[in-house]
Every structure is written in structure tokens, then in C-alpha cells.
């Protein structure tokens, strides 16, 4: 009597494509990574409309107490004593790149006069476009 040969299955997990998946993930992170040039802790205003800020945009941050920090988008932001320093900084940035976008990163509770002075300085420096950084307003926050 002939007995059927017993089938033996090799117990192995196919890992050949794991490196491919891992490298795809690496490429994703490398493409999407943005290095934060300003780490000022602010509570941003909420808006329903939000437009993408251009990469390497210059930053002016205003915290709740009105302290100002500036960054050209290439290096970490630095504290500046007054709004006149923002004007000279912005004028220098615009002189090297007239189409450079500026981002105002201000705390939602900061007094408007601080923002007004910064906007005025940016206008005087002939900045072409200003972004006011915000976070997404959700249906919950709209409904209250």
C-alpha cells in the first residue's frame, strides 16, 4: 500500500518587500518634514479659511505680552526689542527677495495694537503678501 507523502510547509514570513515599504515611508517623511523656525508658544486664532504658507516664508511672532520674534525662514527666530527692528529686518529681507511672503504668528488674545504696529512695519517695508497663521475652525467650535 502506497502512502501519500506528507506535505511539509516551510514556516517563513516574506520580508523581502519590508525594506521597500520602509524606504517609501522614509521618502514620505523627508518630503513632508518642515523644520519649525519659530517655537513661540501661542494660541493661534481659529479660521475656516486657511491657505498654505509658502515654504521659507519669513516669520514675525507676537506672544500674548507683545514680545516680538523674527525669522527670515532660514534660521531660528530671534527676539527683537521693538517694532522698528521688525521694520529694518523686513526691509532687509524684502531687499534680497521682493516677493518674500511674511507670516504673522500672533496669539489670539494679544492686544491688536501689537499686531497693528507689525502690519504697519511690514507695509512700510513693502511686503507683498502677509499671512496670518491660524488653526482650523471645526464645526464644534463654530457651533460653540
Amino acid at each position: 500500500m502506497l502512502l501519500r507523502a506528507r506535505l511539509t510547509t516551510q514556516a517563513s514570513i516574506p520580508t523581502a518587500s519590508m525594506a521597500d515599504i520602509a524606504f517609501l515611508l522614509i521618502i514620505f517623511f523627508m518630503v513632508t518634514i518642515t523644520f519649525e523656525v519659530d517655537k513661540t508658544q501661542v494660541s493661534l486664532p481659529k479660521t475656516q479659511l486657511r491657505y498654505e504658507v509658502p515654504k521659507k516664508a519669513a516669520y514675525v511672532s507676537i506672544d500674548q505680552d507683545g514680545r516680538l520674534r523674527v525669522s527670515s525662514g532660514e534660521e531660528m527666530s530671534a527676539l527683537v526689542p521693538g517694532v522698528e527692528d521688525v521694520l529694518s529686518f523686513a526691509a532687509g529681507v524684502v531687499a534680497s527677495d521682493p516677493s518674500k511672503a511674511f507670516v504673522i504668528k500672533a496669539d489670539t488674545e494679544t492686544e491688536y495694537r501689537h499686531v497693528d504696529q507689525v502690519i504697519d512695519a511690514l507695509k512700510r517695508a513693502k511686503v507683498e503678501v502677509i499671512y496670518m497663521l491660524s488653526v482650523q475652525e471645526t464645526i464644534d467650535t463654530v457651533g460653540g
Partner: protein
Amino acid sequence: MKFSRSKVSDEIPTSSMADIAFLLIIYFMVTTTFTATRGLDFAPPKEDDNPPIIEKEDSVLIEIRSDGSLVVDQRPLPLGELIEYLKPKLERNPEKPVIIRPDPSAPYGAMVDVMDELRQGKEKGLKEEVRISLPTQREIDALWF
């Protein structure tokens, strides 16, 4: 006499590649910070040698009080009714500028709320984009007073 031939493997060792790749992934995951990189944009008006003289009466003036409430053309108005108020005025004259004038002690967020609402005017029933003007205190002092 017996000769032993040494065998040299012609394979590239790739077993550690996945480990290296995962280490890199972990590095990127740890260092990536999901920051807010979006916001409302506005373009300040270009320098003009002969800027048009806009009378207060030819425009809609939105004042933001220090508590964040709105006064539109001398009348208190909730933010939710702003577009409805603007509709008939802008239908008659779509070029009518809407001036936002926050109180210096008003919260910045209140101005952004108004700007956000006006920028959505077309989606909320207005025929044209609202011509928003955000003069600074220095410009107001120089032009109006």
C-alpha cells in the same frame, strides 16, 4: 592529497537594510513636528502716487471694540449677521470697500474672525469678493484725522 576549495558568497547582505530603514523612520517620526503652516492671507495695497480718496460714507466701516464685539456703520451687529448686512450695500456697489478698524486693545482673534467671515462672503451669498481694507493706526491718523 585533498584540496579544500573555499567558497565565497556572491550575495550582497541586505538583511540589515530593513533595520536601518526603520531606524531612519523612527528618527523622522520623532523629529517631525506637525506645525500650523496655514493661515489667512492678505496683500497690502501697492504704493500709489495718487491713492483714491475714500470717504467714510462711501464705505462700510466695521469697528471692533475692546471686548471683541462689532459696531458696523455705528450700529452694534453680531458677526453672524455681517454678510446679510453687507448684501444690499454691495449689490448696489460691489466696489464699496469694507474697512476693518479694530480698537487697539481689542483681541487680535476678533479681527481674524471678521477677516475670515468677509473672505467667505462669496460662498455665503455675495456676488463679488469683498474689498477688504485694513488700515493701520498710522494710516488712519494720517488720512482721516
